[in-house]
């Protein structure tokens, strides 16, 4: 993993000192709330319904055990003993005091963490494949580029006041686990004909009020030209993105208005002018890259009694089927930790659970922990012979729910329980659906099924790309939910289509079950829900949900 050097640390120290001073000025009345709000937001501090919320960046979803323990410590000292992992792979603390915020930032800086640019109209935390460096199907470790982007985008003098927020995703696997096509920029690592690596560049995807799957504006960008190209995209956006209407300010609107080709021409013309002067020297990429070469792998380690236990213990076998993924090295596996315990709040984790994950990562996982945009955690490098012990420890802590990618692995934003912008709650809807599909046999029989819930049109819960998307709306003062079908945030990215009129809260779980039952009736051998839906269209599902209502 990347380790901060003295320069990285100095940047954080300077920044936390600056924020401490800004908080002081606000409390003393030297800054008005209007002036202070953007400053606190640029340090991740929001005001929610009940308290301030601090969003801590987990850079490209990567944490070490020391950092995880520091987060647990902050949860205990400054919050109510828990944190919430988000679809942006960050962690949020829901009960923070403004007075405490500078001390929290100091505590974070002590372990090389921060909340810089986790809000505001700037370049946000980069999303990376949570299996980076471990995935069997990966071309090259994308984190090298993520770390380089993190540095380049941090306190960028020209691009810190963009028309709107800006999110970049990087993936190096054909299987996209980052939702790259619904980011402002998606970078898909490719191998060129010359054997070198480069990126397919996708610009202008996004969710929110107007969802788009982003178009490709360049099929192949040599990787050593990445930074001049990013600068060109950001400059075109900073100059020409709309600033008159915040709902039309994302780059997706600019790309859609100009058309992908015209936008690409603008970018290429600007890129020409910047030239290689705007690129990062190879030496720096190599320096960063060296930090990501994994030193501790054993060649062909024994798998111990892994197979025997898998055969003998059905519960362990189920965990392995759903939560263990193929590793690039023989004898290793990727362990998915579910933060979707049945009836729990999706993405929430207690301080004790954080400590446990830190311990397991240290003992069995080369000190490497990842957070995923689906609000789960990952131990990317676990030897197969240790998986059983890891599973038992996770299970005892309520972290081994064997439901990764299954129907109870639901994404939900904080919704009206916390969020000041919400129309309706999201958490309780997720909990109710998860309880309905609690039986693991049933969930497995249904197969891959992604439900994503947002409490308002901002789409923090990714509902547009849920196989079933659920959007909270306020209908005559009641919590109602709009269902969409057929979205996907993976390599086959698609925006879901609205199924029909919004439903009251007490009909949502029944509707989901009706859709699932219709799928089980309609599906052919080997089809996932999405495949069936794409073949049949939404008629059978509409019928199932709305028939009896007529």
């Amino acid at each position: 993993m990347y380790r901060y050097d003295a320069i990285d640390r100095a940047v954080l120290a300077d920044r936390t000192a600056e924020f401490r001073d800004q908080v002081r000025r606000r409390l003393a009345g030297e800054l008005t709330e209007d002036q202070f709000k953007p400053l606190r937001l640029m340090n991740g501090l929001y005001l929610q319904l009940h308290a301030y919320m601090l969003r801590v960046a987990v850079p490209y979803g990567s944490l070490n055990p020391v950092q995880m323990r520091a987060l647990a410590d902050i949860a205990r000292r400054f919050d109510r003993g828990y944190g919430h992992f988000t679809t942006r792979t960050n962690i949020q603390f829901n009960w923070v005091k403004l007075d405490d915020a500078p001390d929290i930032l100091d505590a974070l800086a002590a372990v090389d963490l921060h909340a810089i640019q986790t809000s505001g109209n700037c370049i946000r935390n980069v999303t990376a494949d949570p299996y980076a460096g471990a995935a069997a199907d990966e071309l090259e470790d994308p984190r090298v580029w993520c770390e380089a982007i993190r540095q380049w985008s941090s306190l960028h003098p020209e691009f810190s006041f963009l028309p709107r927020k800006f999110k970049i995703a990087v993936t190096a696997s054909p299987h996209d686990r980052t939702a790259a096509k619904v980011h402002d920029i998606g970078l898909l690592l490719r191998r060129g004909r010359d054997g070198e690596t480069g990126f397919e560049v996708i610009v202008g995807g996004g969710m929110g009020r107007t969802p788009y799957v982003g178009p490709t504006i360049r099929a192949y960008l040599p990787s050593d030209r990445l930074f001049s190209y990013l600068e060109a995209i950001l400059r075109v956006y900073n100059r020409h993105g709309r600033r008159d209407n915040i709902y039309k300010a994302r780059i997706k609107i600019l790309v859609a208005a100009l058309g992908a080709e015209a936008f690409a021409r603008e970018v290429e013309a600007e890129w020409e002018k910047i030239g290689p002067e705007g690129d990062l020297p190879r030496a720096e990429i190599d320096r960063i890259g060296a930090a990501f070469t994994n030193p501790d792998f054993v060649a062909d380690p024994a798998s111990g009694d892994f197979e025997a236990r898998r055969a003998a213990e059905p519960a362990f076998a189920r965990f392995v089927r759903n939560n263990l993924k193929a590793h690039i090295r023989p004898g290793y596996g990727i362990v998915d930790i579910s933060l979707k315990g049945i009836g729990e709040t999706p993405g929430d984790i207690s301080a004790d659970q954080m400590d446990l994950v830190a311990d397991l990562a240290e003992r069995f996982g080369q000190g490497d922990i990842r957070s995923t945009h689906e609000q789960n955690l990952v131990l990317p490098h676990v030897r197969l012979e240790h998986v059983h012990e890891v599973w038992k420890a996770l299970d005892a802590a309520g972290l081994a729910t064997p439901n990764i990618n299954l129907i109870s692995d639901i994404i939900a934003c904080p919704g009206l329980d916390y969020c000041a912008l919400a129309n309706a709650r999201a958490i309780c809807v997720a909990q109710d659906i998860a309880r309905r599909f609690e039986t693991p046999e049933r969930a497995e029989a249904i197969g891959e099924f992604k439900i994503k819930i947002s409490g308002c049109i901002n789409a923090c819960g990714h509902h547009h790309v849920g196989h079933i998307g659920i959007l909270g709306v306020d209908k005559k003062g009641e919590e109602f939910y709009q269902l969409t079908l057929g979205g996907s945030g993976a390599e086959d990215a698609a925006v879901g289509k609205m199924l029909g009129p919004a439903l009251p809260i007490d009909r949502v779980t029944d509707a989901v079950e009706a859709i699932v039952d219709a799928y089980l009736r309609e599906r052919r051998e080997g089809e996932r829900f999405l495949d069936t839906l794409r073949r049949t269209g939404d008629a059978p599902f509409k019928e199932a949900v709305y028939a009896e209502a007529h």
Partner: protein
Amino acid sequence: MPKLIRSTGGVFEEVEDTFVAIEDEAADPGGDILVSFSRLKGGGEALAARSHGRLGVRLEPEDEIEDLEGRLAGVALVALAFPKFRDGRPFTAARLLRTRLGFKGEIRAVGDVLRDQAGFMVRCGFDAFVPADGATASSWAEAAGRHSHVYQRAADARAPAFVERQGE
């Protein structure tokens, strides 16, 4: 009179503003004048030929900085307006004005100019500031010098982290 802070060789000082903004239709009063971009475009030659006093031009965020190309002769000051501090376009304009158009005169930040952006402004090539938040030359200098390291190249001469590291 709003305060003007100018940086000369990295030293920030409060100075007197000698420029007088004049309306598009108003007669040239002589002395140092600040005109709109359209006036500069319209009366370019007469303005460039002024012998009495210096010339400044004010650009709004929607003005294309490239349109200044070929019109910078005789221009001593370019004022870039921040109608709201959140409007980030002047950062790009200043950077391009310095690095691409090679402008050596004063680039002044006017409008909703807050010290919390001082560091970014200096890095993008601004060297004069009319703060809207009551900042003094010393608080401005402190804010501008807040960060001892930077990660990117910009319009200033600071070495980014990747260059500093090469020297290690």
